[in-house]
């Protein structure tokens, strides 16, 4: 009976999760195609050091150590999770115990010790997030769902740990009572004393009830977690790895070239031959105003962001009270991608571009237009406040690059909308006309003539 329920719940949990993850994949690839496959060696090294090794987390060692406990406990618990799945489907009990023998005791004991660490880390994280006035957790963008989300994950973590220790603790007491099916597994580091302390003296039926309760609580929390991930900041536990792999490898200072503009300027300057009879494209759009004109890597990083706010806490604009918050840029891109995804799922033909409505039969990302854009989420004021100092890029533990998105949106504003801060216009005109950032009557080498004339 338990096996049948387990099979149904498991298939439903994985099925529903898979559906949601496919939607996220679809949303990520709403972004433009871009081939990011150069230097695989360097990329794998980054995955090893930055994603697995959490190298960049250790710029701030207190949260790094606490996070490490939860992270390592999570990685190790996967072994236990596999056992849970095997036992669930086949009606076995602690399937790996007989296979691994003494090693099993070591593995479970390690998981238990890590879990205790994770438990305390989670408590401290809850305190940091809610009771200590840590500025990066108290900003405007961290109200509403993001605040709930941050706490929700920690609460789920604690429920999970309650499940683990009820299950192991009751199991240990049952083992010592010689209960049927509960074969000896050796001493577990924590539940060998925690079990008797909590559950000692209870009847076998009650204990089996507690053990089963713990077992089911554990697996159901995992399933809840799995299905909560797609809407949560906690998605980083999966996407951090691909995001680090596909992160920019060039020097941080390098802005990506725009070959389409380069070639146009080259042909204007007579540097390359162009066919004057070539058909003119419709008025091209430069830069990014929406998820579809960002690269898929940008969207991947938006879904990877765990809203820790390290970027915002080092942003010179944000520190001095400007509206810009790099974290909010990432959250906005994710929210916008999710919004577009939902509208595409609705298939509602009202979201088809006006001029294509007559011929369109289905709603696709190519003919999509809901009259909104990323500029409805991110204001010009935010974009204009950026000093391109790369502090946010440097700060991100999973190599997200908010600056790249800011610069792409600046390009859209200037090149496609011909807008932007008025103060910049004289600088543009001056560079274009006189080759200098300031319009000045002096010759560019006057300083040198004056300096050497004193010889």
């Amino acid at each position: 009976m338990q096996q049948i329920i387990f099979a149904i719940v498991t298939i439903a949990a994985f099925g529903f999760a898979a559906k949601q993850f496919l939607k996220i994949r679809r949303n990520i690839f709403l972004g433009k195609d871009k081939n990011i496959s150069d230097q695989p060696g360097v990329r794998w090294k980054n995955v090893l050091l930055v994603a697995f090794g959490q190298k960049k987390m250790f710029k701030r060692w207190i949260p790094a150590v606490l996070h490490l406990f939860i992270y390592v406990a999570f990685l190790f618990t996967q072994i236990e999770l596999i056992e849970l799945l095997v036992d669930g489907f086949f009606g076995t009990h602690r399937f790996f115990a007989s296979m691994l023998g003494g090693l099993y005791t070591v593995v479970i004991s390690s998981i238990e010790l890590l879990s205790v660490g994770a438990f305390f880390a989670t408590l401290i994280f809850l305190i940091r997030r809610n009771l200590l006035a840590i500025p990066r957790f108290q900003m405007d963008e961290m109200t509403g769902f993001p605040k709930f989300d941050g706490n929700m994950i920690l609460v789920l973590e604690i429920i999970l740990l309650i499940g683990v220790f009820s299950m192991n603790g009751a199991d240990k007491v049952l083992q010592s009572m010689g209960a049927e099916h509960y074969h000896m597994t050796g001493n577990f580091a924590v539940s060998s004393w925690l079990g008797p302390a909590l559950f000692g003296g209870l009847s076998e039926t009650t204990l089996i009830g507690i053990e089963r309760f713990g077992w089911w609580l554990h697996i159901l929390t995992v399933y809840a977690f799995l299905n909560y991930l797609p809407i949560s900041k906690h998605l980083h536990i999966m996407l951090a790895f691909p995001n680090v792999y596909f992160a920019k490898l060039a020097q941080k200072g390098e802005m990506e070239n725009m070959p389409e503009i380069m070639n146009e300027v080259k042909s204007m300057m007579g540097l390359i031959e162009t066919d004057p009879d070539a058909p003119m494209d419709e008025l091209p759009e430069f830069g990014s105003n929406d998820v579809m004109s960002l690269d898929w890597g940008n969207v991947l990083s938006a879904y990877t962001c765990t809203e820790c706010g390290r970027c915002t806490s080092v942003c010179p604009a944000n520190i001095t009270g400007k509206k810009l918050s790099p974290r909010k840029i990432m959250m906005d891109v994710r929210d916008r991608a999710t919004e577009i995804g939902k509208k595409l799922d609705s298939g509602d033909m009202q979201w088809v571009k006006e001029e294509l409505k007559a011929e369109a039969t289905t709603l696709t990302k190519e003919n999509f237009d809901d009259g909104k854009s990323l500029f409805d989420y991110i204001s010009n004021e935010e974009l204009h406040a950026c000093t391109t100092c790369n502090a946010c890029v440097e700060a991100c533990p999973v190599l997200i690059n908010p600056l790249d998105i800011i610069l792409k949106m600046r390009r859209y504003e200037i090149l496609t909308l011909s807008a932007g801060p008025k103060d910049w216009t004289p600088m543009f005109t001056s560079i274009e006309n006189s080759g200098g950032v300031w319009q000045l009557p002096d010759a560019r080498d006057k300083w040198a003539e004056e300096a050497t004339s004193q010889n």
Partner: protein
Amino acid sequence: MSKEYKIPTMAEMAAAEKTPEVLFWVGCAGSFDSRAQKVSVAFTKILNEAGVEFAILGKEESCTGDPARRAGNEFVFQMVALQNIETLNLYNVKKIVATCPHCFNVLKNEYPALGGNYEVMHHTQFLQSLINEGRIKLKDGGAFDGKKITYHDSCYLGRANGVYEAPRSVLQNLDNQLVEMQRTKSNGLCCGAGGAQMFKEDEPGKKRINIERTEEALETGAEIVAVNCPFCLTMMSDGIKAKEKQESVMVYDLAELILGKM
């Protein structure tokens, strides 16, 4: 200071059928900003003194296009960049040194995609190599001796290009105590000028970024703030003026500090 002080142009060099060791990229600030001009003079004096065969482009130099590109204006960037590359390639330039980290970054990292491939150094790196090769002789006793120095990392030399040690190693050669600000190296705080902010008013906020950074510099108790960028030079000088500390705290480029010891 003994040798004749000369700042030849590439055109003059080419006319004399000479190829300089390195092209000094002066940049807009170094050419036009009165404070940054002093850095250009200091650096060229060092080059003369060290016997480095160099030249500038003079009237043939244009803005690298950095502020236009960062503001989002790729057209203006491409126009000046391609023109500069034409000029540089015409003179068959192989090696460039820039006193502005913004110029340095664009020349080094962004011109290759447009067809301009050069070995590019920032002047702090160049100074380091001149000192290491023994081409710069530092004397005992100098105008700045004994003063406490704090070094401000520019974003475009630091984070953007990972150059943290060269300028510090140059400063080690001075008879000064070097103190670090709280936010330093890869955690360094911007002066507020980058990303074309230099050319516009601040967005609404509580404080100017250069004030935040100046306060941090002042906390170290340093009497000299050493910078490597003409825009940091302006921003930090303005900050110190706003804090009314211009009598006791000076802002200098590394080149000026080295020249003071020569």
